[in-house]
């Protein structure tokens, strides 16, 4: 049976973002209406039973996260929706917020009710200003229609949803850094524990959830946890959005169940439709820039959290970056390390200094000035970052280096032998700009 899209079925219709369209096509706010007839604990149970796993990167069970939120405290509780979406190769929340914002708004409201919060903040990256405008206008409409605000559906439940604009910082996507940023500080992570569920925003119990995660909640409430968990393989149920970019024919956001294979996502006509200009694929990064590469012979695996992990990588944010054989592995690592050096929040030394050293070494090798001992140095610096940092950013930053060194060590060596880049593609800078900034 063909997969029936649920998150993105109507997004290509004109005006899909409006409240009218949401009510007409998607049984809008019926999930919330139903949720308010249940006890908060029952909602958490349903989300747990559904097996919903966080779509922000780590794949942690959402129901469990909500259950951990401290209940016996007079303090207010909060939902923070993570709409920072800055992981290179990821652009699914962008589409959801822009084309189906009410699904998120409804998800926020149900989430608040479930954990006993009255306020949800949607932390959106500063660059998504156009998305923010849509989101704010639609929130306004939800208030007017009585889906937000005081005494929703006469249930006595109050809920406010606010959009909070970030200002350009990848690290603000890390959950405790997001909370710090929401509190009006630098987006630098906190030492955990305590986890946000105990002491999050304003030191109050907080659940931080990704946009796509919250969008799944109304669907679970409406269609039941069983429906959800049966959509896709065991422990990897529910609809999933895949972001496919790079050297493919039809880059974009595609919805599928997690029994779909990576090969289908990249080559099937229903999805990205194969490689651009039919050039052979060199490798794919399956889950946003922070995860290890997979080779063309590793694609026949389900694109699920567990499937990709079994193959030696991670599904992460499901951002597939596909590239062909014109790409130099050293250049690729250099490009990504530029990102990580730029975005390191600077709080801990291995990451702050290490990313800079890795980039310098990679630039040196790419320029053709590398020495044989640089490879050990790259390896050594990477391993002095991995596992030694405050947040997962450090491991993520070392991954492109370790992964390309593992798979394409010969290319690194060839650069050093040849004293030049061995694969200078025509789409790259004509003049070596590397090192200019």
């Amino acid at each position, binding site marked *: 049976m063909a997969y029936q899209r649920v998150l993105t079925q109507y997004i290509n219709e004109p005006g899909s973002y409006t409240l009218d369209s949401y009510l007409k096509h998607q049984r809008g706010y019926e999930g919330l209406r139903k949720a308010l007839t249940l006890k908060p604990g029952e909602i958490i149970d349903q989300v747990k039973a559904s097996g919903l796993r966080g779509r922000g990167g780590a794949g942690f069970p959402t129901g469990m996260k909500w259950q951990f939120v401290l209940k016996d405290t007079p303090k207010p509780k909060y939902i923070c929706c993570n709409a920072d*979406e800055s992981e290179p190769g990821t652009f699914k929340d962008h589409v959801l917020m822009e084309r189906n914002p009410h699904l998120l708004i409804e998800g926020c409201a149900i989430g608040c009710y479930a954990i006993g919060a009255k306020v949800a903040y949607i932390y959106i990256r500063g*660059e998504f200003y156009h998305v923010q405008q849509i989101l704010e206008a639609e929130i306004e409409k939800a208030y007017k229609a009585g889906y937000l605000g005081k005494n929703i559906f006469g249930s006595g439940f109050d809920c406010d949803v606010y959009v909070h604009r970030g200002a350009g910082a990848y690290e603000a996507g890390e959950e405790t850094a997001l909370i710090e940023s929401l509190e009006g500080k630098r987006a630098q992570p906190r030492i955990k524990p305590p986890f946000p569920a105990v002491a999050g925003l304003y030191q109050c119990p907080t659940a931080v959830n990704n946009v796509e995660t919250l969008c799944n909640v109304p669907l679970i409430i409406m269609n039941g946890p069983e429906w959800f968990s049966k959509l896709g393989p065991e422990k990897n149920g529910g609809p999933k959005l895949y972001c496919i970019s790079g050297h493919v024919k*039809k880059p974009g956001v595609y919805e599928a169940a997690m029994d779909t294979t990576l090969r289908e996502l990249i080559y099937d006509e229903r999805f990205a439709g194969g490689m651009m200009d039919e050039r052979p694929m060199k490798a794919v990064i399956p889950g946003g*820039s922070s995860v290890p590469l997979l080779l063309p012979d590793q694609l026949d695996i389900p694109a699920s959290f567990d499937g990709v992990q079994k193959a030696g990588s991670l599904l992460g944010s499901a951002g597939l970056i596909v590239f062909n054989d014109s790409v130099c592995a050293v250049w690729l690592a250099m490009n990504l390390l*530029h*990102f990580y050096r730029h975005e390191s929040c600077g709080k801990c030394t291995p990451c702050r200094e290490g990313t800079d050293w890795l980039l310098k070494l990679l630039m040196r090798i790419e320029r053709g000035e590398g020495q044989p001992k640089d490879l050990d140095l790259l390896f050594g610096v990477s391993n002095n970052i991995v596992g030694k940092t405050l947040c997962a950013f450090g491991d993520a930053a070392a991954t492109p280096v370790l992964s390309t060194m593992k798979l394409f060590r010969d290319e690194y060596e060839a650069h050093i032998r040849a004293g030049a880049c061995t694969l200078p593609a025509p789409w790259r*800078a004509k003049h070596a700009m590397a090192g200019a*900034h």
Partner: protein
Amino acid sequence: MSFHPRMEYAPAKFHKSERTLAEQGGDFKYTPENQAKFDENVTHYPPEQRKSAILFALYLAQGQQGYLTAAAMQHVAQQIGCTAAEVEDVVTYYTMFYRTPVGKYVINVCRTLSCALLGAERVTEELSAALGIKPGETDPTGTFTLVEVECLGACDRAPVVMVNDEWHERLAPEQSAKLIADIRTKGAAAFTGCHLNKEAQQGAGARGTGDRGKGDRT
């Protein structure tokens, strides 16, 4: 500066710890409209958490003046009820705040992987040549500033360029010089906008994000 004779420390500008004193600038005060916007925004947070409104407050100040001076940061500090140093701490961390004047159009070219794979490095070169400035610089007329930024979250429309708060997508290197010429004559009308956004607002056709002109997204 280095603490070890053989070890060159990373230039401070790579780190979020960069600290240069902001220019004092002339007297700064919110316009009444901006004051009203700030007063509304602050109500989104608990009364004792005014500091949460700091990013919003800084956007307002930057919008009013083009960039942030020490006087503007002091005004924000007063509004929030914190020290000017705390405001500066925040300003120096986030990339979307400017502490020196920028051009009327700040061209942010995404340089991260998906965009780079489709020619973003060449786009920067072409824009740089067309404007006669290097990334990070502003042209002498104060019209354009060229900046390289990291992933903008629209990698399927690579290469992506953000100009102020507007987007321009699928900018091929060969079209880059023309884009500059178009901005000069047409202003903001030269931008494609965010593809998705345009469709959402105008309901123009059923094209998803996933096409290069042929085929539709599932």
